[in-house]
């Protein structure tokens, strides 16, 4: 059997750098007949979509959003208590700024100790990284009717920036306690919302409730998820079976069924004199659901720690618990950060499901406003749903970009 040598009819074309827009278009848009056809068809579609979008944007009635902006943002919060959400926002701005600043300072110190150059993140880079969020804030503020929210938002940004620089210049001894300051500030923001005659989370709504369910759900579920993940990797068969059983059972059902169970069945299985409020039951359901997913994320991180690390810890005589706490967990949790951001994104999207059970979070609010007498039957769903979609899109898109950046930075994907 003879094998014929392949015959080259001509030398493979040399790739030349493009010389001007016409040349670029010929290489990247019209390099053969089917690509030319595709380009023309798609270009027609894109132009049509752009024109339709532009016409929609110009002709839409934005009054429905302008009149209901507060409902979208914070739900049915009493109008005379508006200082409370603002106070909470300022607490959060300080908290985020200080945590960011002290993380940056920590990185700077570690780099200088290791004798490595430290590249400072400039304000310009931050603006480039978070432009969708800044643009979203501008869009939301454009719907306000008075100038106060704009001034307050600018104030919050300035305060946040100031806290960032404060966090950077804090002496090391103080910086070790930043986590405590953060906890205190989070507690302060909750107290400013709910304490002394305010509104607890049962009465929250709008975007505020989506964010609360996401943050609280993930934070509370995290310790349970960690335990479940360690249980799943345990060498004790009973503990492993319990963990695997729980994780797989929860991961096999949709979140909405867990929420329905939280709404209608939790009351049957807990003692009758405990009656948590509706939002609390939703939160419990979300925590129970997320714990299983976080367990899988953490398990991935635990598996990424090389066995040699555990063996080395055993060789220097560390107890199993100390091996876990000092050697395995710090490395494993670092590796899970990108996946945790992914989990955050998917939970943020999933908090819309409580709308099905009638809680006025952001998505449900877009329906509530359409049944107001002024807008009933006008078919403004396109406007309100697009507004909500924009908010979710900006949040999820920015975070997924950040998670990809972290992945590159931590080198997680390169093993």
């Amino acid at each position, binding site marked *: 059997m003879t094998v014929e040598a392949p015959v080259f009819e001509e030398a493979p074309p040399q790739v030349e750098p493009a010389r001007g827009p016409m040349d670029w278009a010929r290489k990247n848009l019209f390099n053969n007949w089917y690509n030319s056809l595709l380009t023309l068809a798609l270009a027609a579609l894109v132009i049509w979509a752009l024109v339709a979008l532009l016409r929609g944007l110009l002709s839409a009635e934005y009054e429905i959003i302008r009149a209901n902006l507060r409902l979208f943002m914070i739900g049915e919060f009493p109008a005379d208590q508006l200082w409370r959400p603002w106070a909470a926002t300022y607490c959060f701005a300080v908290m985020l700024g200080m945590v960011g600043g002290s993380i940056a300072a920590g990185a700077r110190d570690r780099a200088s100790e290791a004798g490595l150059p430290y590249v400072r993140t400039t304000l310009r880079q931050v603006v480039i990284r978070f432009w969708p969020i800044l643009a979203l804030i501008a869009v939301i503020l454009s719907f306000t009717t008075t100038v106060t929210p704009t001034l307050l938002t600018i104030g919050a940004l300035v305060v946040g920036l100031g806290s960032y620089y404060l966090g950077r210049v804090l002496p090391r001894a103080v910086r070790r306690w930043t986590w405590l300051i953060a906890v205190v500030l989070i507690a302060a923001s909750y107290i400013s919302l709910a304490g002394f005659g305010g509104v607890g989370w049962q009465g929250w709504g709008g975007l505020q409730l989506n964010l609360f369910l996401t943050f609280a759900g993930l934070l509370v579920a995290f310790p349970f998820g960690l335990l479940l993940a360690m249980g799943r990797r345990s060498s004790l068969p*009973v503990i492993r079976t319990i963990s695997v059983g729980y994780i797989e059972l929860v991961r096999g*059902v949709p979140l909405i*069924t867990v929420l329905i*169970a939280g709404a209608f069945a939790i009351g*049957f299985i807990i003692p009758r004199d405990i009656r948590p409020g509706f939002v609390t039951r939703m939160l419990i359901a979300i925590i129970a659901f997320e714990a299983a997913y976080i367990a899988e994320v953490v398990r991935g991180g635990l598996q990424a720690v090389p066995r040699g690390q555990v063996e080395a810890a055993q060789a220097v005589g560390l107890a199993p618990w100390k091996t876990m706490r000092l050697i395995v967990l710090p490395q494993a949790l670092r590796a899970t950060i990108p996946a945790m951001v992914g989990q955050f994104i998917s939970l943020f999207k999933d908090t819309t*499901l409580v709308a099905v059970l009638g809680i006025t979070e952001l998505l449900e609010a877009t329906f509530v406003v359409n049944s107001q007498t002024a807008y009933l039957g006008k078919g403004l769903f396109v406007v309100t749903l697009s507004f909500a979609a924009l908010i*979710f*899109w900006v949040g999820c898109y920015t975070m997924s970009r950040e998670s990809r950046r972290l992945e590159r930075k931590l080198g997680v994907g390169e093993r």
Partner: protein
Amino acid sequence: MTAVEETRHRPRLWRDVRVLRAVIQVLAGAAVLIILYVLWFNLTNNLRAAGLPTGFDFLTQPLGVDIPGSDISPSAPIWRGLLNAVKNTLALVVVGIPLLTLIGVLVGVARLSTNWLVAKAAGLYVEIIRNIPPLLIIFFVFNAVVLRFPVLQESLNISDLVIVNNRYLAMVGFTAQPNFGPFLAIIAVALLIAAGVWWWRTRRSEATGVPHHRFLWALGVFTILTLIGFVALGGPIGLSRPILDGRALEGGYTGLAAYWAVLAALVLYTASHVAEIVRGSILAVPRGQSEAANAIALTPFQRLRYVVMPQAMRIAIPPIISQYLNFTKNTSLAIAIGYAEMTRITFQLIGNGQPAPQMIFLLMGGYLIFSLIISLIVNVVNRRMQLVTR
């Protein structure tokens, strides 16, 4: 050097690892059992106190709710309504999975196209749809698109092939004529002969080294035989056009608007995730593979079909199947726009006074069975692919 001294004393009981392991496991097991028992105790007590049944006998009681788009009356037993709901969920899954695979793979490949516009357009679609909650997409498709279609009396009718209104979407369909049975037999025979041709081409290719083209051969033989059968039997399959008769649609394939809205929204959403997986998997194939394919002068299509795709698919298939699982679970979101699938019916029946714990147990059990089947498929696929490659 001294010899290692042998220490043979037993450790004290509370330091003995074997004892500790046993004690911890017994304690954990007992704690879980006690918690489960307490919950069970509360459940039965509370159900009795509320005057609700504690068993599953209620499933034979009348349904009490009307199911849109089905002929099940409110007086039919509950279990029939639940079976219908399973059927409706399956209708979404069975149609949705092939569709989303097709769109996902096409878009994923398009994102890596050398055509700048194609790549950017595909990227735009993926980045927009992936970051919006699926429930919002369903609402958008239903409230902003489907509900804006004309009402039933003023249905949009495209030359009797497609009828669109805001309650139904009907398409021209096929109906079996009297001699459909013999035609099925002819199709079966044609399939057998095609398989034989496939086998013959494979053997010949192995023996002589000529390209086998077994797929084209088999397809050609099958098509010709089926066509001959179709003509000989005088058209065993007829067309059935949808007819708008007063308030009802008859003939053709008719689906509720809510069904099409959920299907379109979830297929678009899941396809964007599949596209990302496909793109990542293609990029994960080492560059040297493409370069080697170029070096032996394969055409771009051959390079994709025989070199890149087989390796990329090995990476892509497990995460894609887990997207199928997500799709199946997300069909529960149809509850929001009233398509009568499993979650919707359960929700309605609970609102109608049926016992919530049992209903939710059945609902979760149903989804668990779906999940179990899909993870079985994952395992089988994983094992087969490992055998094939290494």
